[in-house]
Structure formats: structure tokens, C-alpha cells
């Protein structure tokens, strides 16, 4: 990031809604200070977030959808000096910035969404060209069409959801949780479960235990995080590493877990904690882990996570999109 001139901090009333805002600005401004910080890696992860994931813009979105784009823009301009409330991706970005892990840029529709150093206002156009041009490691948005487009273009992407409750998240360690199948790995095994059942799945996984799974849409993001982690390990900072990764999978350790671990090893990737739930709900475990973000391909798990206060991000990839709670979804007639 470039050096900034000191900017005047606008006087703000200390309402409870604005404390988060002030806190974030303070963190951001503290990046300019000379206070000792964790070793800054030369390799930084590039995250692109849409304004609606970074900030809570539910009211604004309503205007956009109900009254049209011109009214939306007018509203934004009218309120442009008012800070926005944090959205679901806010803690993830905040801690990532604070620990100097991310450089990032923001995609927004309107100028009043500016708060970050590097941003793009694409006026509603597809951001894929820009994501590719700047080698984005992860794209977070509320727009599942754009997210799907990004995944098809080989960019790790997910739609982020606001949890139902708040949780206490770490300020100093970025905690990222991933589902396994159809997120880190391809959906090849999930297809077997959906089409042939669990028993066939277990047999298949045991049989092919030593054959690595194909990679999934978020494998490259895990890899980018791993690269950052290794910088800390090489400086003997393993204990203080500001990134911790988790695998949270419905697989069971005994019957189908080995293949997953062997696949990761074959890719040269480490995951800090691998948690095999053997089909148990993910919500309670995630509540304990308290990740800044949790990636899963199935909305069922996303909802379970959200209900218990975890910030969950849906990866629209693979066979899981055609099913809900194990049943094939009736495809609704496409809206014209």
C-alpha cells in the first residue's frame, strides 16, 4: 500500500453503531504508525470485496431494487458523509489488514462506498476482467452470478452471509475455515454420495485413498494463505502465526478422512486443524472455532453456521447446488 498523508478524522458521534467504524478506522490508520508490527511478508494476499459484503447496505439495496438505480445513487450521494455499518466480510478484511496479510481492493457501485486505499467502481459491469488483471486470490460478493462467473474463470470466490448473532472474533489471528468436498476439493466424491449413497462413497474413498482428489475452487486461496504462513514459519513465528486454517468436513476420520489428508499432502499444503464431523452438524463446532469466515458449497451448512453466529460464505460450485438437505431440488422455471 502507498504512503498516505495524515487525513483528518471526521468528528463522529460515539453511538454504538459507529464504534465499529471508528475502531476500523483506527486500525487502518495505525498501519501508518511506526509501532512495531508483525513481520510484513513480501507476498501479500489480494482480496477483492464488494461494498455490500464489506458494509451492511440492506437499506440501500432495498432502494436499488424497489426504486431503481437513479434513486439509489441519489440516496448514496445524499448520505455520503455518513459511515456505513460493517457487513459480513468486515471482520475478515479488518483482521487481514491489521495483520498486514492483505492488500486488497474493493469493488463498489457508487462513490460513497469508499473507505479503502485501492478500489474499483465498475458501474455495475462484470468485475472478472479486473479480478484477473490484478491476480485476485479471493473475491467476496453478495452477487452469486458474479461469484459463479469468477469461479468459472478460476478465481476463488464466495457469496458472504451475515450471521444471525454476533460473535467474539480474534483481532490478532485470522481464522479461516473450509469445507472439503466441492470447496477445497472437486465435487467428484460428493457426486458419488448423491447418486450412489454413503456406503458406495465409503468403499470408493477407501479404494482410492492414495489417489489425490482433484482440486476445488478454493484450493488456490488456501495455497495463498499457506504461502503467507510459511513466511512466519521461516522466521520462527509458528506459534504467533496470525493465520490459522481449519478443515470442517462431514467426512468421518475413520472411513473417508485419510484420502483428504493425503490429497492435501500431495499438494504440499498444510491445514492447521482438520475436523471430521462424520455427518454431525457443523454449526456448534464452528461456534467454538470462531472463524472470520467459513466456506461451504451447501446452503444447508451455510444456514446452520449462520444460525449460530458464524460468518459463512457460499461457494456456488458442483453437484451440491442441485440438492437441498439431500434431496434433488426441483428446478424453478427460469425468470425471464
Amino acid at each position, binding site marked *: *500500500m502507498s504512503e498516505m498523508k495524515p487525513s483528518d478524522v471526521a468528528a463522529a458521534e460515539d453511538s454504538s453503531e459507529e464504534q465499529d467504524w471508528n475502531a476500523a478506522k483506527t486500525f487502518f490508520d495505525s498501519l501508518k504508525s511506526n509501532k512495531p508490527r508483525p513481520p510484513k511478508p513480501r507476498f501479500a494476499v489480494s482480496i477483492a470485496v464488494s461494498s455490500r459484503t464489506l458494509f451492511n447496505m440492506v437499506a440501500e439495496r432495498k432502494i436499488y431494487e424497489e426504486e431503481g*438505480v437513479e434513486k439509489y445513487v441519489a440516496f448514496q450521494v445524499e448520505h455520503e458523509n455518513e459511515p456505513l455499518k460493517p457487513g459480513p466480510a468486515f471482520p475478515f478484511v479488518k483482521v487481514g489488514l491489521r495483520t498486514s496479510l492483505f492488500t486488497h481492493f474493493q469493488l463498489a457501485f457508487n*462513490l460513497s462506498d*469508499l473507505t*479503502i*486505499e485501492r478500489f*474499483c467502481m465498475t458501474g455495475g459491469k462484470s468485475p472478472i476482467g479486473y479480478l484477473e488483471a490484478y491476480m485476485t486470490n479471493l473475491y467476496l460478493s453478495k452477487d452469486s452470478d458474479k461469484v459463479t462467473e469468477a469461479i468459472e474463470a478460476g478465481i476463488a470466490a464466495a457469496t458472504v452471509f451475515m450471521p444471525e448473532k454476533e460473535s467474539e472474533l480474534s483481532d490478532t489471528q485470522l481464522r479461516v475455515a473450509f469445507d472439503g468436498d466441492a470447496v477445497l476439493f472437486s465435487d467428484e466424491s460428493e457426486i458419488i454420495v448423491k447418486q450412489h449413497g454413503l456406503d458406495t462413497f465409503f468403499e470408493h474413498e477407501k479404494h482410492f485413498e492414495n489417489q489425490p482428489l482433484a482440486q476445488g475452487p478454493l484450493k488456490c486461496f488456501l495455497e495463498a494463505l499457506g504461502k503467507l504462513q510459511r513466511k512466519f514459519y521461516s522466521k520462527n513465528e509458528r506459534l504467533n502465526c496470525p493465520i490459522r486454517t481449519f478443515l470442517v468436513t462431514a467426512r468421518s476420520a475413520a472411513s473417508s478422512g485419510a484420502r483428504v489428508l493425503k490429497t492435501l499432502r500431495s499438494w504440499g499444503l498444510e491445514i492447521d486443524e482438520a475436523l471430521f464431523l462424520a455427518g454431525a452438524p457443523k454449526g456448534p463446532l464452528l461456534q467454538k472455532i470462531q472463524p472470520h469466515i467459513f466456506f461451504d458449497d451447501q446452503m444447508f451448512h451455510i444456514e446452520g453456521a449462520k444460525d449460530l453466529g458464524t460468518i459463512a460464505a457460499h461457494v456456488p460450485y458442483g453437484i451440491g447446488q442441485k440438492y437441498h438437505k439431500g434431496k434433488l431440488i426441483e428446478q424453478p422455471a427460469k425468470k425471464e
Partner: protein
Amino acid sequence: SKDSDHAVVVAVASRAVFEPGAGGGDGVYAEGVAFPLLQALQKVNERLLEENSAESLLFDIVLITTDSQQQQQSSQLISSTKHYGLEVSRFCFSTEEDFSESLLKNNVQLFLSTDRNEVSQTSQKGVLSALLDEYTASCPSEQLRVLLCGDAVIRPDTNPTPASRQAAQSFSARLGKMRQRFGMSDSPLSITLMTSCGGRDSCGGALQTLRSLGISADEAYCLAGAPQGPILSVLRPHFLLSDGFSGLED
């Protein structure tokens, strides 16, 4: 019809519009790199007149030639223009010495050329000029895309003078006014702001400056030090203007 008080006069080097020397068959020149640009300018005029048939804020397109060879083939130039249906209001033939004066005399508000030296000279004589190069679109486009560079040092060889800054701002203000004739989507003209070095305050300030000039940017990119190449290859503007939009104190 074009009221000379309100028309935005854009002069383009004919060498950029037509391939020099190349035959397009039937004695007509082949299309050059600025050809799509001319079509886009024309499209804006068409749409402006569709919105208001009495519109006077239109692009007034002038083809200017110094190339003595092209001057000898002036009739071929004119017939090529007709052949492609290009709406050129004037053809200027000038010597290299009189070139900048010719532009000034014709009240040219923007001069576009593929020749770096030419652009540098006219710029120094106070004519707002932009170089058409590998960054600028030569592929056909439905929409005229203009890039305004806030703090960029894209053209290190041009020194912005107060006069050229003023020219850039007043030209852009007229573009901004044209842009207002259309709604948020489906506009034949798109104005993009880019700042290269400064952070959000720099870009935010530039956007405010634009707004004070009556320009509402469709897109904005604050690169904050990131390289320009990738974004330019995605944006593919027809031309870009630097200086005059800095949000920081001069």
C-alpha cells in the same frame, strides 16, 4: 445541425483514421486505428439527436492532414470518408509549421493523433491533445470510452501547463454535460476516472473535482500504486486525458 457556439470540436489526424498509403480497394483507404473512435463519436451524436433533435452540444469532427502525400490525394481522403459514412464536418490541410495555429484557428478543443511528436508539439502550443497508442481501443465498440487520469504520470513527456489544465477541464466539463443527456445505463458515452499513485483521499478528491465541473464518472479506479498496464488493457479507453483532475493541492 451544429451550432458553432456549442459544438465540441475534435480534430483527428487523418493518418490515424486511415491507413497511410494502403488501398482499401476502389481507390478508398483502409481503416486505421482511430476509425472505431470516430464511429463512437458519431454514435454519441446520433444518440444525442435522438434524445433531442434540436441538440446543439454535439461533436464536430475535423480531419487534419499534414502528410503531403495525403494532401495530394485529398479527393481520395474525402471520398473514403464518404464511403465509410463518416460524418466529418471539415478537412484541414496544413503544413507542419502551421499545424498548431491551424488547430487553434479552428477552435479545436481536442486533438488526437498516433504521432507522439505531433501531440507533444500541439500540447505545448496550448491545444488539448491526446496520443492514441497501444493502450487505447482500436476495436469497435458501442460506447465511447474516455479515461480521465487524476494523478497519473502516464505521459511523462508532456508538461501540464495551467492553460492545458484549463483546456482539459473545460473539455471534460462539456463531455460531462453530454453524459447528462443520458441515463445511468445504455449511455453511448462512458467517463472513467483513474488515479495511480495516491490513496483513497486522492481519488475521492478527484471525484469531487469532477463533480464540481459537472462530470459524473461512470467508473472509478484508485490503483494506489498498483501497475496501470493490467487495468488499461481491461478498460480499453478510446483516449485518455491526464492533468487537470488532481484532487490534491497543486
